[in-house]
């Protein structure tokens, strides 16, 4: 999303203290904005730069002087004089537990590299919750050759729901159904995607941080043990289907496209595409991996795909 053009009075500055250091931020900024500007890492899972925060995962909590509980950095806006600690013992304890609870209930093995790193850094130990602990257990939903839904990996970050709904696609094909630990991302009555309102834009896949939503080709490569980051490349090109000019990143392995993304910071797409750009390679035989967009060969670079 492009930054709003300021009108009227310039935004006022707010002075806050973060980990003992005075910082100033524009009014309306979140604690996370301030931390990012200061180069302090605050882990986030359900937050994304292009999506209004739902503040559900709670891994971003920080300590705010005077507050009874910790507060979510991703959505709490700074106010004058806030005194914030991002790395106190209390903060670390809650973050560790959030990560540990997630890892104890779903399969995070294909989660974003950052999430895997935080699990290590915070010392999450899912095993201590016992071998008989309840876990999310769902069949893999593979209903077509475009993408697979593997909700055993889902952390319920709501990103796919929001990408499908108010934040990008306005299709509302999926929502959270059920309650509590039984809550799941679902179509109405869990009907298969072709029967639902889904238009196969793949924007949900683009935002999923855990690999729960995954291109069918990538899913098959991974399942058969052939997924090989060493043999992969990413090619940046422009979608040929219409005049909007969406940037595409074609992820290939051995000349086969297994995933298509668009950069989240791209000013046209914000990472979102439509079915043609996302899955058009299925029928566009011409989009030969390895020989893409020859006008721009230097855009071919190595993949940094997560293991």
């Amino acid at each position, binding site marked *: 999303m492009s930054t709003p053009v300021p009108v009227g009075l310039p935004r006022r500055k707010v002075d806050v203290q973060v980990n003992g250091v005075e910082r100033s931020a524009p009014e309306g900024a979140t604690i996370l904005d301030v931390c990012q500007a200061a180069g302090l890492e605050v882990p986030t899972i359900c937050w994304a730069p292009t999506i209004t925060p*739902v*503040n*559900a*995962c*709670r*891994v971003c*909590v920080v300590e705010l002087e005077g507050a009874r*509980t*910790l507060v*979510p950095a991703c*959505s709490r806006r700074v106010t004058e004089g806030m005194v914030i600690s991002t790395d106190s013992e*209390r903060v670390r*304890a*809650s973050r560790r*537990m*959030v990560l540990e*609870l*997630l890892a*104890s*209930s779903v399969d995070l093995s294909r989660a974003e590299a950052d999430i895997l790193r935080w699990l290590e850094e915070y010392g999450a130990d899912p095993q*201590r*919750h*016992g071998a*008989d*602990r*309840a876990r999310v257990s769902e069949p893999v939903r593979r209903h077509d050759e475009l993408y697979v839904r593997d909700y055993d990996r889902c*952390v*319920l970050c709501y990103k796919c729901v929001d990408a499908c*709904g*108010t934040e990008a696609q*306005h299709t*509302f*094909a*999926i*929502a*959270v*159904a*059920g*309650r*509590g*630990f*039984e*809550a799941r991302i*679902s*179509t*109405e*009555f869990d*009907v298969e995607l072709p*029967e*639902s*309102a889904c238009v196969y834009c793949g924007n949900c896949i683009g935002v999923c941080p855990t690999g729960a939503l995954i291109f069918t080709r990538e899913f098959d490569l991974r399942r058969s043990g052939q997924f090989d980051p060493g043999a992969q490349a990413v090619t940046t090109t422009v979608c040929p289907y219409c005049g909007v000019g969406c940037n595409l990143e074609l992820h290939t392995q051995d000349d086969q496209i297994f995933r298509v993304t668009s950069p989240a910071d791209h000013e046209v797409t914000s990472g979102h595409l439509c079915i043609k750009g996302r899955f058009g390679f299925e029928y566009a035989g011409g989009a030969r991996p390895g020989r893409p967009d020859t006008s721009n060969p230097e855009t071919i670079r190595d993949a940094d795909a997560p293991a």
Partner: protein
Amino acid sequence: MESRSSLDAPTPAEVRVLDAAVGLRHDTVDARVIRRGPDRRHLLLPALHALQDGVGWISPEALGELCARLEVPRAEAFGVATFYALLRTEAGPATVVHACDDIACRVHPDYRDPAAAHAAHAAGESVGVHPSPCLGQCDRAPALFVQRSGAEAARWRAVGSVADALATAGTEPASPRVLAAGPAWLTGRIGVVDPASLEDYRAHGGYGALRTALAVGPDAVLREIADSGLRGRGGAAFPTGVKWRAVAASARRERYVVCNADESEPGTFKDRVLMEGDPYALVESMTIAAAAVGATRGYVYIRGEYPEAEERVAHAIDRARHRGLLGSDVAGSGLDFDIEVRRGAGAYICGEETALFNSLEGYRGEPRSKPPFPTEAGLFGRPTVVNNVETLHNVTVILNAGAEAFRRVGTAESPGTKLFSIAGSVANPGVYEVPFGTRLDELLALAGAPGAGGAVLLGGAAGMFVSPDATDLPLTFEDSRMAGLTLGSGSVTVFDRSVDIGDIVERITSFFRDESCGQCVPCRVGTVRQHETIVRLRNGSALPDDGELLEDLAGVMGDASICGLGHTAASAVTSALRLGLIAGAPASSGNGTGR
């Protein structure tokens, strides 16, 4: 089973229900591509209720048609329907008996396990028996709630066996025990007036407070409420005057008054007794609130398991409107205000104020992030006064007696009287009205609690166990806070020494596991792990670090959850461990917050 689609035609019966509930479909709507339409989404929950009542479940076809009519995406409506315990998205028996197995009922001598009750009931009949969390009738334990659908759709509350419950359809439940030790400000009319009669209400002082309010004007009412020191009775004890003033001072004109009558805290039933026994007082109080803050619309959100309360409040609203005490010119004063009743559908979390707003608006009952607070952005994003039933009942008391007289009862920080719902192992379960400052042991004596031994849970599942040697606690907000306790919703659940407190604690942990909305990780997963750990402690399979694990869970739920459900999900457990009440578990030294 043959596959059914939301795009197929609904049955004639479903169409009839939908015609009555939401009207016809806008002919420009294409069922295949439903975006979010304007304005009518708040009819979703009432329409789902209508389908549940009329047809017995919400079928794919009926949901599809409903969504086309209201312009609500199907996946979202399914998400709403599956949020609630009283709505079903699979066909099932036409009659369902919800049998309470919660903390007060399960210690009653007549209590039977719902599974056993089901087995004992004549097989083959179209009756389902579901175990249920507290039904808000702990004074009549063991409690049942019957939900019948189809042509004779009805809901009623009952006691005893499933067979009895099915036989007592529509009979008036026994009147509740209500006792006041001190001024009967809140309970004085209960059992005295005819709850259906506006004339009788007036004959007993009703509508005098509204007359005063309209005569003195909004500023004077706000001052009186602020001066009275009235604090919220829904659990958070927030000063009512501050809340009202914030809404009155808002720059936005469209404002709401919402009465929180979702009363679902296990062990609590006082709001039910107020609504059933004195419904006009609630209508009058909400009208005064509207006059004070400048609201034009009010809602009473009543839990779905309270059919009598719903019927009586709806009747009172109807009569008041008929007499010009609601509507476009309330009592000839020019005030424009009306009230609508909305029915909850079986979700404890919908008592959390922002979850209640979402539920009413037709979304899943998931709490919102605060700030912004309801006074700034509440129902439909507008400034909203949301108050508990008992809080509102105090409003007429204050306007009738004056703030000064109100303050003369109770303590400086906790003025007035307080209702306590007392149940469990007591001779006289019921609603007790006492001045703030009455000691817990005095209250227990009034209700005929057994002497030494046993345990008392103060504030329901979200509350804490009181040490047996600390029952001399004065019941005020300030004393309970100093003792590390909370009055919460004002429930006092008593367990004699024969009760296995470990069993009660386990039930509390499964309550939170079932009732978590599932939105945030600390609570969605933490409540499950807490329940599993307590089960392990009780069945002898504890892991070496389980004590530490419980403290860590209490820490993250209390510190990092979004709402009060997660914040308090460990308090009863922690207090029971600290007091050494769980057989087999080591007494912990934790301070209760895990910090």
